[in-house]
């Protein structure tokens, strides 16, 4: 018998597999397909203080082994999420959920986090300071240690629940930003968000995405994510949620060896809506094959 259970910032998870924000909505589309209580948890769609339409289409482009998105944080706003999405979610998901929060000003992060922190269903807050597809906010908070720390401190001051800061890979020194967040009181870090990329339409000779650039995700970025998780693990003591191109149970083990306590599955959900369920079912099999009895034993295993 193998054990897949882990603990993330003091909250028990049956397994380390979460669906990543922006690829799982508020869970309803997937709950129509399978019982999503098999998940360790999931991080719901990035939520902002005010409703957002996001960017005009085209919002999606493609690359070898990956995709670009420039959705631009479309969401109904925190009020509607609390009034409509969370009550609806209660009917099909009974575990603590991760609340993903974005903002365009410090006060927006603070207010949105404060409101969601009060919701019983919310287990963790995942503060996205790394969205590459919005202007005048999002990633700009996550590219300098000082502003990353500022957001962390402000959010921590109003939250009782664990605060996980979601980091951008589009920086020169991710370890420095990770340390700044830890010093500012972050309970955990999640990484990586998408990498800035672009595709062009050869007929129009213009960028495919209306936003010009988008965020690259999918298997193409797994090695980048592994290298960054590995590096951040050496720089901080707080737990890491590792993500970026994970597509199978072996990738989960690899990400945990690099230093992740839990993992998130993103783009793969969009290609195969059953992927999280299948990875969770496959995980004990892969563990047995690799001689792993308890997943906790392998977190950061590559460093010892």
């Amino acid at each position, binding site marked *: 018998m193998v054990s897949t259970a882990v603990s993330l910032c003091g909250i028990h998870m049956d397994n380390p597999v979460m669906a990543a924000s922006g*690829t799982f909505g508020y869970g309803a589309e997937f709950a129509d397909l399978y019982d999503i209580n098999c998940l360790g948890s999931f991080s719901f769609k990035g939520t902002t203080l005010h409703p957002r339409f996001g960017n005009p289409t085209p919002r999606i482009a493609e690359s070898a082994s990956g995709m670009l998105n420039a959705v631009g944080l479309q969401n109904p706003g925190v009020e509607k999420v609390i009034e409509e999405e969370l009550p609806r979610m209660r009917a099909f998901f009974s575990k603590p959920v991760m609340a993903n929060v974005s903002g365009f000003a410090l006060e927006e992060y603070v207010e949105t986090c404060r409101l969601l922190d009060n919701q019983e269903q919310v287990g963790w807050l995942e503060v996205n300071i790394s969205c590459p597809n919005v202007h005048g906010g999002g990633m700009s908070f996550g590219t300098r240690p000082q502003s990353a720390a500022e957001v962390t401190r402000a959010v921590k001051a109003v939250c009782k629940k664990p605060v996980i800061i979601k980091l951008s890979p589009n920086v020169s020194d991710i370890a420095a930003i990770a340390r700044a967040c830890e010093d500012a009181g972050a309970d955990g870090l999640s990484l990586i968000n998408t990498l800035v990329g672009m595709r062009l339409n050869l007929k129009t000779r213009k960028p495919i995405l209306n936003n010009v650039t988008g965020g690259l995700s999918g298997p193409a970025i797994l090695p980048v994510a592994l290298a960054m998780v590995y590096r951040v693990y050496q720089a901080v003591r707080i737990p890491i949620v590792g993500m970026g191109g994970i597509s199978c149970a072996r990738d989960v083990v690899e990400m945990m060896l690099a230093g992740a306590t839990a993992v998130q599955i993103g783009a793969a959900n969009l290609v195969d809506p059953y992927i999280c369920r299948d990875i969770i079912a496959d995980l004990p099999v892969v563990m047995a094959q690799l001689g792993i009895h308890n997943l906790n034993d392998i977190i950061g295993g590559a460093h010892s």
Partner: protein
Amino acid sequence: MTQGQYTVISNRPIAAATWEMLLAGDTSALTRPGQFVNLRTGGHYLRRPLSVCAWDDSRLTLIYKVVGQGTDWLSERQAGDPIDMLCGLGNGFDTGLSGQYPLLIGGGVGLPPLYQLAHQLVDEGKQPRLIMGFNSVQEVFYREEFERLMPVTVTTMDGSCGVRGLVTEVPPETNCTYFYACGPSPMLRALCGCLTMPGQLSLEERMGCGFGACMGCTIRTRLGDKRVCKEGPVFLKEELIW
């Protein structure tokens, strides 16, 4: 929605760069004409959405244009090959609003979803008519199939078949009170501009997932923001903003 392996029964060219593929598999999630499938192709990460042309209890027909790597791969599939597909996506056409004499308008590979729609309208005792538009005679497909169901007017941009020009060149029959359209966006926009009758239009958009998770295909409508893959691809004329 169902996900599964479907088996190619046949795959053949029916016009210039236009192919018809017949597949066997679970069609239980198909409930309305105008719904689509999202299929995996070799060498691509994301699936390819294709509207369903026709289906029965165990088979479905797709018609697609070879425009790039993904559809090129698709055209190389042979009888017996498996295809991984999400089936029964989107909302489809509502035939309840059609009236007795609905007008169907299809442009190029926008025509396929109108085929099952035409069957259903005829089965319901209605008398539809069709205007089908192409660039040239080499692209014309399914003319005879449609003509078995209803009167058909063909238009081509170069005049090599039927009426020269766009589908909007053809004045609608005076007894038509409702229309159904699928085709390129400029065609749909033009139709909304020149037709005074109400109708339904099937839209096309770049999609990530095809089942409502990624928000990659959201458009603004008069009734709020809607996902083309989930609340669409078929929209009422009245709700679209051009």
